[in-house]
């Protein structure tokens, strides 16, 4: 029963079952690291680890994968939740079509972490796989739980347990900060309809189906908290964030035995009344976690899972998902999704899904009793400064900011339009994510950038800094509405990546199977002695001719890819410099030889 070593890799959730392909994935998250979003295509289009390695070795394939993934994968993220990437990349702007900032109707956070993947097959019913988790789309190292289940849409009947999830997907377009493309809207409606007809089986040990609970879809928040169960005898609550109001939703069940697992800082901040009610308080031990020997190196550090287990009679009900035990989460200010499954709680050492079975399976060893310690009250100036930063962020979100792009002679003019709110004691810096953060500017006299087309982006990084107190800067990325953004930008971005003879050769090597050299090329750059990195060197006509001829005789299809890249580059850039002249001559010779053979 959910032993500490029962783990799975998040990206595997998007891998299609045998015989299927990923048709569409809709993911929701509170926070988003754009790097994670770049990782997904690897998982989506590669069926296995070897597949991922193949992609890595063939960047052109990878670019294609990215392009396809932006069509198929859609991420709905809280509008404040996109993190500033640590390095600027043109590639990020290629992700724009996949990222949809949303706003919780109840005024709180858009917090659910649901993945809905639809897999299609030529001759079978589609399969819909749903994951309800506590995991955001970030690389945070934390303990997170996911319930994953898959099923196929049934005939016309609607499935009560799936109604609430269907509702969430149907209403996503109404939460979006910017209007979605009509095609995407239609696809969401279709997916929602299919979800409503799909039964999701529970994991082994449980005997129910999965029932989804979606909170906070209304813009009139309830004045009472969601109660997972009206009556229960025993409850185990796990959540990193806990408030007295939130806990009351559980004590209201009348449960006599109560165990709470959270973070020490959270427990420190709870009022005494709660400590008296919840005698059994535990925290997760971090020091005892061993380094893994396998690829999942970098063990989780820190509790992030949210789970409520309630026992009533012979049965145990599990609720897992995004909701913390706070008023915002449970009373409908936030949007949250929890999945419920139930089963017999079982007897000692036997089967069952009760609290004791879970603790025995290893969870108890991860926990240690909480020892109360006195906390220093937060310094009032810092609290006020942090508040000011957050207030300004909210003002930015609710303003009329947008991005205007206007073509110039060579470059494009990229500027922020609309009114930028100001606040006393806060400095604002912003920059397009395709540039590095040193180029942040403050909004005095309407700063604008001259950018090449491939750097234009709807993602704007913001940095809010308090001048009066020592608090961390508040940084985030907003995806803003755009005006004058040229078409075909993402194609251009991808093609721009092969913008030098060196990169061209690098791709060519990859295509022709010179894979070892490629990884060395990628790995050895921080080297002061890296003489091999010199532009213009590293081109060995003889070797390349040999490779081309070998490919021509053994595997002529590979040359098709070379042909299309060379044609593409010559056409687009008109810049012979990208395809070195020597190489062009070699290529023409090989090409003519091939044509001769084909017509013979």
């Amino acid at each position, binding site marked *: 029963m*959910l032993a500490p070593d*029962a*783990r799975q*890799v*998040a990206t595997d959730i998007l891998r299609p079952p045998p*015989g299927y392909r990923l048709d569409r994935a809709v993911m929701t998250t509170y926070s988003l690291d754009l*790097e*994670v979003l*770049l*990782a997904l295509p*690897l*998982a989506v289009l590669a069926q296995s680890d070897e597949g991922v390695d193949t992609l*890595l070795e063939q*960047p052109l394939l990878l670019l294609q994968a990215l392009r396809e993934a932006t069509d198929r994968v859609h991420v709905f993220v809280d509008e404040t939740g996109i993190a500033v990437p640590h*390095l600027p*990349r043109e*590639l990020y702007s290629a992700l724009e079509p996949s990222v949809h900032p949303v706003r919780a109707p109840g005024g709180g956070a858009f917090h659910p972490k649901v993945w809905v993947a639809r897999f299609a097959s030529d001759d*079978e*019913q589609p*399969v819909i796989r749903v994951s309800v*988790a506590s*995991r955001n789309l*970030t*690389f945070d190292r934390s303990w997170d*739980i*996911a*319930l994953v289940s*898959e099923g196929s849409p049934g005939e016309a009947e609607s499935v009560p347990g799936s109604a609430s999830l269907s509702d969430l997907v149907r209403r996503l377009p109404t939460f979006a900060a910017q209007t979605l493309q009509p095609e995407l809207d239609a696809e969401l409606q279709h997916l929602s309809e299919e979800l409503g007809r799909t039964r*999701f*089986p529970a994991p082994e040990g*449980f005997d129910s189906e999965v029932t989804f609970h979606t909170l906070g879809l209304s813009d009139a928040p309830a004045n009472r908290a969601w109660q997972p169960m009206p009556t229960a005898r025993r409850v185990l609550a796990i959540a990193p964030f806990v408030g007295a109001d939130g806990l009351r939703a559980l004590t209201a069940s009348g449960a006599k035995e109560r165990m709470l697992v959270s973070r020490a800082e959270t427990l420190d901040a709870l009022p005494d009344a709660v400590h008296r009610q919840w005698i059994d308080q535990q925290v997760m031990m971090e020091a005892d976690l061993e380094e893994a020997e396998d*690829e*999942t*190196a*970098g063990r989780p550090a820190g509790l992030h899972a949210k789970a409520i287990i309630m026992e009533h009679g012979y049965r145990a009900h599990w609720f*897992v998902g995004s909701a913390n035990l706070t008023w915002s989460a449970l009373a409908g200010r936030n949007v949250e999704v929890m999945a419920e499954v139930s089963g017999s709680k079982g007897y000692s050492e036997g089967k069952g899904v009760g609290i004791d079975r879970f603790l025995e399976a290893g969870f108890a060893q991860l926990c240690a009793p909480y020892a109360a310690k006195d906390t220093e009250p937060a310094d009032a100036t810092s609290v006020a400064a942090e508040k000011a930063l957050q207030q300004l962020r909210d003002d930015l979100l609710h303003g009329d900011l947008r991005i205007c792009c206007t073509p110039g002679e060579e470059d494009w003019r990229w500027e922020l339009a609309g009114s930028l709110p100001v606040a006393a004691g806060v400095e604002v810096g912003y920059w397009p994510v395709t*540039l590095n953060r*040193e180029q942040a*500017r*403050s909004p*005095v006299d309407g*700063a*604008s950038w*001259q950018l*090449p087309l*491939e750097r234009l982006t709807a993602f704007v990084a913001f940095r809010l800094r308090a001048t009066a107190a020592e608090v961390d800067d508040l940084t985030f990325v907003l995806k803003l509405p755009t005006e004058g953004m040229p078409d075909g930008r993402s194609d251009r971005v991808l093609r721009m990546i092969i*913008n*030098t003879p060196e990169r061209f050769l690098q791709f060519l090597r990859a295509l022709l199977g010179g894979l070892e050299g490629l990884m060395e090329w*990628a*790995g*050895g*750059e921080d080297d*002061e*002695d890296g*003489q091999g*990195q*010199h*532009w*213009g060197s590293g081109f060995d006509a003889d070797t390349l001719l040999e490779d081309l001829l070998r490919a021509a005789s053994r595997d002529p299809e590979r040359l098709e890819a070379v042909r299309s890249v060379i044609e593409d580059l010559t056409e687009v850039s008109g810049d012979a*410099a990208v395809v070195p002249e020597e190489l062009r001559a070699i290529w023409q010779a090989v090409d003519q030889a091939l044509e001769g053979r084909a017509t013979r």
Partner: protein
Amino acid sequence: MPTAPTATLTWIDLTAADRNKVRQVLDLFREQGTVDELGLGTLRDLLSDSLFPGTSVLHTRMRYVLFIPWIYRAMERDDKRISDVSGEARAREIALIEALKSGDGGSGIIGSEAGRGLSRLPSSAYWAALVRWGVFVPRQSQSWYHRHFRRLARAEPAGRADDPGVTWTQEPTWHPRVPEPPTDLFEAANFRLTREEAAFVQGCIQANVNGSLLAWLAGEGGAGLGSSAALWEEPQVWEAPSTITGIAELAQRFSLHVEGAPLLYNLLLAEMRRDRAGDHNGTDSDRIEDYRERLGEWAAREAGEAPFNPDALWALAAQRGVAVKPPQKRFVEAWSEAIARSGAASVADSTALRQLIEKRERMLKGARARTVNHSRLLDWRGDVGVGRMSFRWPQVRQMLTDLHHGLAN
């Protein structure tokens, strides 16, 4: 029938491996910077290699020169149980990282941050030293060794070379007098050389790169090295024989002479970006001021020296069999002539020198040159390739300090 319904309730990870893969992908697309913006690297390396043969900027501590043979010698003994030589070697080097963290070895652990994701292993950083100093006897590349590992491992006799009566059927892979490793090497390793180890390394250096500053400092002359930031600030250096100090002088003079070039290059970029991008809060304007000031300071120092004559450098290159490409030679000569003619103080505003720098960058990088490629100019971080050449002195000083500590045991 669709596939059997499945469901799981588990802990969930986005693994470090996922992250590393994304990073690898992103690196493929990275705007590659280079420390050597103006193509002076080969000349710098010519001087570094003359002074300190076998060393590299990736070097940290001297004891790696023994760690690597120890790892491989143990593998040669385990040869039959090893299916993937380079994988096994990698695993053992990674294990050593942990052992070094457990030992109180101090700084200089290669891969202490990257851990198992380390892309450049200590063995690859030190291989040239192992070859140059005669520790790896066949004097071949690491990949050659891996390819011929089995044949070589089996040829190794069980005894030590200094055992009486052992005759070699074949040349050994590792120097027969490499000292024995400590028994707890993979539990708690450190960088402290024993006396025997230090004497061995000293012997290898003196036998194989005799006549270099490295060999001189590895001997008596290098005991009690201070913490001087540059090699020319170290008094012991100047006590070496004149053939050696001649090269040290050349390195000192050349590095000062060309220090102005990257400063001018960065000044140029700051001006271009300010003019082009309309930078309203003036960070590039601040940089322009900063670079003018630094160029002024440099010019004052340069003007205090006799004019630099590159011929000594070309002579050294010829003597060491290093081919200097004509454009590189022309660039250095043009720089030297202009300064000799108009004085170092005129550099910041010299149209001719600005053109020289632009031309040089275009030649090296073509369409990627920052002076012509706006996208690359946008990525400029405000200082590239700035600073005086150090000729690997910080690395060499640390390794020599390790060596002499060992000898003093």
